[in-house]
């Protein structure tokens, strides 16, 4: 395994909030072409880990690097390589879909025909044509989520970090988003956090389960399923994360 393949490298990552340790000594690597499903109960530290990777939260201990660049040392370079969908997909409600995507493209340093092409492509990929000129606050939850997704893939990033990307979508939209993730997986490294265990089977090449801040499982979804006595992922999940 060369350094170049490890697009995301986390070593002993730790996060303390005052006296509470939210993430405790987490280590894993993600290679190009991998889709890592990040699982765990609420409050296990999934979002916190993602927030540290994307440079939103400062790291308390350990290191994280993206494409060989340390997250703390080179924040801007790292952020330009990541597409990030934060939990709940926060968006500027007062802007129109197209206005918002243009804004994101401009902050990411795109301009002219290049910007136009990239914005158009992400609108097409997420099928947002019908709501292009609508204020985001008037959109349905599904559309909002897709605008958030469009924003994350707009600059064709090497790394995608998606915090519960299919939360609040109907089954058709979930299917669409999963297809999109699979399609993009070839030349990117992707981390998705989810509560939906079937999603891991459907799109992920690897599953990492985190409980109370520590990793309790890191292998393929098939291996995870094999651990179960009755073939149900829910049951393994409960066993691994139960205290």
């Amino acid at each position, binding site marked *: 395994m060369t350094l170049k393949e490890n697009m995301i490298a986390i070593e002993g990552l730790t996060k303390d909030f005052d006296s509470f340790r939210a993430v405790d000594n987490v280590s894993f690597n993600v290679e190009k072409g991998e889709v890592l499903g990040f699982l765990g109960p609420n409050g296990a530290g999934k979002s916190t880990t993602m927030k540290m990777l994307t440079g939103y939260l400062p790291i308390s201990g350990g290191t994280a690097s993206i494409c060989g660049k340390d997250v703390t040392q080179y924040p801007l370079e790292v952020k330009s390589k990541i597409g990030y969908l934060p939990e*709940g997909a926060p968006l500027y409600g007062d802007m129109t879909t197209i206005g918002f995507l243009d804004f994101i493209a401009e902050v990411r340093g795109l301009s002219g025909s290049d910007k136009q092409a990239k914005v158009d492509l992400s609108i097409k990929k997420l099928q947002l044509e019908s709501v292009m000129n609508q204020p985001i606050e008037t959109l349905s939850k599904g559309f909002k989520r897709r605008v958030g997704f469009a924003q994350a893939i707009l600059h064709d990033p090497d790394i995608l970090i998606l915090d519960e990307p299919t939360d609040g979508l109907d089954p058709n939209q979930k299917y669409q988003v999963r297809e999109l993730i699979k399609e993009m997986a070839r030349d990117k490294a992707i981390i998705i956090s989810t509560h939906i265990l079937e999603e891991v089977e459907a799109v992920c090449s690897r599953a990492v389960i985190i409980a109370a801040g520590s990793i309790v499982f890191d292998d393929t979804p098939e291996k995870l399923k094999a651990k179960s006595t009755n073939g149900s992922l829910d049951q393994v999940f409960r066993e691994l994360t139960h205290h």
Partner: protein
Amino acid sequence: MHNCLAIIKREVGAYFSTPLAYVFIVIFLALSGALTFFMGAFFERGQADLNSFFSFHPWLYLFLIPAISMRLWAEERKTGTVELLLTLPISTWVIVVGKFLAAWIFIAIALGLTFPLWLTVNYLGDPDNGVIVASYLGSFIMAGSYLAIGSCISATTRNQVIAFILTAVLCFLFLMSGVELVQSFFQGWAPSFMTEALASMSFLTHFNTIVRGVIDLRDIVFFSSIIGVFLYINTAVIHLTRGS
């Protein structure tokens, strides 16, 4: 710099996407007009100047600027968009400056729309336009100081009402620190260097010299430093409060 422009564009757009901007401009124009003509006795004074207009600006800004600045960061923190913003490849201080400039541009538009008053005074008499230009500049840069304080306070909370009140209180302290009432409270016991330092921090003192038509470098430096210091604190506050 291109991404700072993107921030400015978005923020100015955000002001005008709601009726708030128009309401603010109308209130500002109506109040400044009413104060000039009724309380400032513009006609009765019989002077061809805009003193009765500018002398109310420190008091007008006390309530109107916090209304402009309160949403700058508090809204982002409340809706969670601050996470989106801070994970884009752009430095925090660039965002702080961009947001500040956008709000300042908005004030400039409101201030610029008071031009009929300037036309009126030129029609009625022969004012010293140099003094008027200096006063406009002084008023604008003082508004910037109020704004920087407001932006900084806005970053400390997710509640816009709290941001409004705290900003008004802090600006009031800066405004009043040179006034006799406040000074006499301290003069009894505080050492003179403290009362002098306090007096030199007063917006009112610095603004009044500019309105008299004296553009003293010290006053410009004072207001610029206030802007610089509070935007610096603003950036630090955002770093400290992210994720909470």
